[in-house]
Structures are given as C-alpha cells and as structure tokens.
C-alpha cells in the first residue's frame, strides 16, 4: 500500500484492525476521540464489534471479558480515562489476559486540559492499579511508528498473556503525518486457556484474579515475576542517537524526542555534541542503553512534557554514576528546541 496522510488516532485504529483486532470498547475523551470514531465506522465492515460503554470502568471490564474469550480486543482513552481503567487493568494483569490499551495522554492532574502531556509516565509504567504487576508500554514518536508498534503490541500481548499499553501524547494522536501500512502477518498464539466453549471436550476454563489461599497467590506472583523478567530480557526497544562523543546525553520519548533531535542539531552547529537515548518501551526501561555512553559524557538530561517522572527511571539506570538533570514543560505547553538547547548549555556552563 502506498503512502497516505493520516492523523495519529486514525492510523492507530487502522493498524489495530490490520493486526486482527475485532473488538473495541471505549468511552469518548479528547484528544483520542478519532480512535473510537474510526473503530465505530470500520469495525462493522470486518465483522467486528464497536461498543461505546457507559463509562471507562465498564469499557475496560468489557475488554476483560472479551480478552477472556481469547479474541484480539482493545480500548483507548486519555489520561483521566486511563486512571479510571486502572482497576480493570490490574484485574486483567492478574488474570493474565492479552489486550491493548491506548492512552493518548493530556495535561493533568484531574481533568487538566486537552493539550499534549507526558505526565502519565507513572500511571503507565507503575500502574494506578493494585498489586505486583507490570505491563509493556510502547511510546511511539511518529505516526509511522505508532502503526508499527500497534501490531507489535497485539503480538506481545498474546505471547505473554499480558495487557500492553501504547502511550502517545496528544500530539501523536492529533498530528497528521504520511504513513505506510506494511503487510505483516499477525503472530498466531494458541489460547487453550480461553473461555470459548468446552464443546463437551474439556473441563471449563476459569478466568480469575482472586486467590483464597495465600500460598497460591504468592506462587502466582512468582510466576508473574518470571514473566516480567522474561519481558525485560526480550522486549526492550530503544533508539540511541549520537552517543559517541556526546558531552550531554538527553533521554526523551515520544514527541519530546523529536524536539530533542532538533535541539541536538542546533547544538551540533554550535560545536556541542549531544546524544539521545529514546526509550521506545518505557517498561521494560532500556537500562542497558546507558552502558553505551562514553567517558566524554558529563551529564544526562531527562526531557519530558511533565514536571519530571521518567527522570526516576533514568536515575535508576544511571545508578549515581553521573548527574541527572531535568528539563520539562507541562500543562499542555510543548518544549521548544531552543529551550532544550538553553538547558544543555547551562549544564555545560556555556551560556
């Protein structure tokens, strides 16, 4: 298929359908509304179901039910809506069911604003839900990457029986960009655990996250932990850029990484070498990438559209070996390349 011009939200919907998603449950919220709009129009054409639930809580529990049946299912929302879904996400993680949750995030806390933000890093990587669980979080930086990662997200969800989040800030959802859809066979995963009818041939399957025996729950948590370790080993995605010779290494994801790349270009023209570590998976966090940094690097700079959340993971990865600085804008304000350059220069004492 040739290139077309699509809005991030539309492209995410189209990619999900191409990945074999046939079921969508959701509730409207800006700036992700084009996803349910697209799904409501397109899913019936492929024999799927679009359902607007009465609330985010209802929608995520419908996802829970559909995922239990073994089908490819998704929901999407934006920051406060995702907060509402956290209970369901914890249940889905506990019951080990595959599904994809898209968060096109906006400013917060509370209702915040409808403008882009990255202040959902904590609620995406640490969960607002209860219990010991993690799930993969993909953070695309372009519409093309959003499309590619949606397909990946469904495969990984099935492979590990886990909810997977795709986290784009409002700009990723609202921006138009040229995009190309590549034919990619969806990974086939057997789902013997699905509650899709015994047909009189097997015992009924049970989907559950409740354990009345504490030992059984601890055993379950150990099994989950093994799964998380396996994902940490196999599913880390990262882009590194200009690390060699870099005096400062920026860490940024999503839209912000694009702005940082522009800042790096400006610095280069002024004779300052700056590198970038761009986590594509926020969980698992690409800790190993920090080992590629050279002795020339004096400091790290976490750049975020928030008051500073990912910086915690950067500090864990850096483990005190170098100073970790922060530059961010929040509330729907978007950092400028010039703002980032200013911070880099102040770190290096070259104002």
């Amino acid at each position, binding site marked *: 298929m040739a*290139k*077309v*011009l*699509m*809005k991030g939200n539309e492209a995410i919907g189209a990619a999900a359908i191409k990945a074999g998603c046939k079921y969508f449950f959701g509730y409207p919220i*800006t*700036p992700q509304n084009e996803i349910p709009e697209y799904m409501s129009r397109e899913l019936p054409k492929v024999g799927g179901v679009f359902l607007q639930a009465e609330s985010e809580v209802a929608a995520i529990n419908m996802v829970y039910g559909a995922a239990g049946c073994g089908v490819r299912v998704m929901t999407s929302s934006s920051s406060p809506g995702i907060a509402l879904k956290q209970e369901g996400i914890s249940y889905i993680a506990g019951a080990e069911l595959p599904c994809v949750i898209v968060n096109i995030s906006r*400013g917060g806390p509370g209702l915040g*604003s*409808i*403008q882009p933000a990255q202040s959902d890093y904590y609620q995406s990587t640490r969960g607002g839900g209860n219990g010991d669980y993690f799930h993969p979080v993909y953070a695309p930086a*372009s519409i093309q990457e959003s499309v590619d990662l949606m397909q990946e997200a469904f495969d990984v969800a099935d492979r590990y029986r886990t909810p997977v989040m795709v986290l784009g800030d*409002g*700009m990723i959802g*609202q*921006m*138009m*960009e*040229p995009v190309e859809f590549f034919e990619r066979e969806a990974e086939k995963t057997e789902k013997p655990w699905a509650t899709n009818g015994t047909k009189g041939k097997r015992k009924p399957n049970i989907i559950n996250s409740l354990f009345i025996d504490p030992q059984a729950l601890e055993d379950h948590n150990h099994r989950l932990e093994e799964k998380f370790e396996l994902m940490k080993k196999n599913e880390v995605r990262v882009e590194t850029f200009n690390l060699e010779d870099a005096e400062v290494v920026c860490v940024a994801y999503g839209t912000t990484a*694009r*702005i940082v*790349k*522009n800042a790096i270009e400006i610095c280069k023209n002024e004779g300052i070498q700056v590198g970038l570590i761009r986590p594509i998976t926020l969980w698992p966090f690409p800790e190993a990438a920090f080992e590629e940094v050279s002795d020339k690097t004096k400091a790290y700079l976490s750049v975020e559209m928030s008051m500073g959340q990912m910086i915690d993971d950067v500090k864990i990865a850096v483990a005190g070996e170098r100073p970790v600085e922060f530059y961010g804008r929040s509330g*729907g304000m*978007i950092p400028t*390349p010039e703002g980032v350059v200013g911070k880099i220069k102040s770190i290096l004492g070259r104002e």
Partner: protein
Amino acid sequence: MGDRRIRVITGHYGSGKSEFAVNYAVALAKQGKQVCLVDLDVVNPYFRSREKEEELRELGIEVIASSIGGAAIDVPAVSASILKPLHQKELDAVIDLGGDPVGARVLSRFYKDLQDEEIDVFFVVNAYRPETADLEGTLSYLRRIEATARQTVTGLINNTHLLKSTKVEDVLLGQELTQALSRETQIPIRFVSCLETVASELPDDIEGEVFPLQLYLREQWML
C-alpha cells in the same frame, strides 16, 4: 485574487483547510485589505488557525474564534462577533470551517446572514487522505458538506500533499482527481496550493491559480 468578499474554506479534515485559510488571509492582508479570519472549527482540538492569532494580528489580521478564550477549549462555542465580517461590507472575510460535514454544519447557523452576501465556498481536496482518495469519496464529501452547510461550493482547491515531503508528482496526482471532480460537478478549479518550492516546478498551463503555501501551523520539528 478576485474572489468574492466572503470566502469559506471547507473540506475533509486533514485536507489542509486551516493552513490554506491562514495563507489566504495573509495574502489578502499583504494586498492591503482589512481581513478577518474566522475560525469556525468546533471539531478539531489541535492545529486550528486560532493558534496563530498573535502572528496574524501582527500582520493586521483579526482572528475571530470561540467566545471562550484558551487553546484547550473543547466545547462547540462560537463567538457572536462572527457576525461582524458578515455584515461590515468593508471587511474581507476568510471563514475556516471545521472538517467534514459535521464541521460544516456550523455555517448553516449563519444561513440568513449569508443570504444576500457575496460568498465563495472553496472545497479543499487532498488525494492522500484515504477517505477522499478517489472521485466517489471526494464527491460524497463535497455533496454532504454542501448539504449540512446549506451552501453551494463555487471553487475547488487542489491541496494534495504529504506535508513537508510533498513533491510535484503528488500535486499532479491530486490534480487529476480534482479535474475529475470538476468535470463531474462543473465546479471550476480555483487554486492549486502547495509548498513554495514545489509551486515553482508546476507546469505553466496547470488548471487553477498556483498558490504557494508557507506552513504556519507546523512546528520546525514536525514532518
């Protein structure tokens, strides 16, 4: 640009209406006209022409949008001051409608105000948008927009593009579609709009006035 005093820019969302509307308003202002840019987009929360209000004001263009200030406004509230350029005949108005029939509906509210006015309605075509990639889709959007806006399209704009990576071939591909639409509807092609660098490479005999665009709504880091 000998168009009528009030120009409405409409089309499928993502076709490039707002970028054209801003450029068109700037071109009018540069001719010394007193210009009002009316942003009637109540559909899209991002990339609206009102975002550039400050720059446009410096060029002498008055931007009229929602009566409620703030870029993050997400309610379909339009300002009563929209009536100003409709009634004050000395003003030149560019009305930037929201995308799709749903966005065009806002205009029908002003049906009576526009009844005796000199009005052009321009329909923007981008052949790279999947919904308007062929004649059938484009024609369907045009007719449905006319119906909900209660206006008749008077001119077509070929604005086929892939943002900053647009090439001459892309514009020419869109020109074929726009010509087919023109033949079908008997509506003339009024403009062919594209990046300044591409505009200079277009054939001289292309149907419609070549209108070079500067990208006001795309940040430097965007594609």
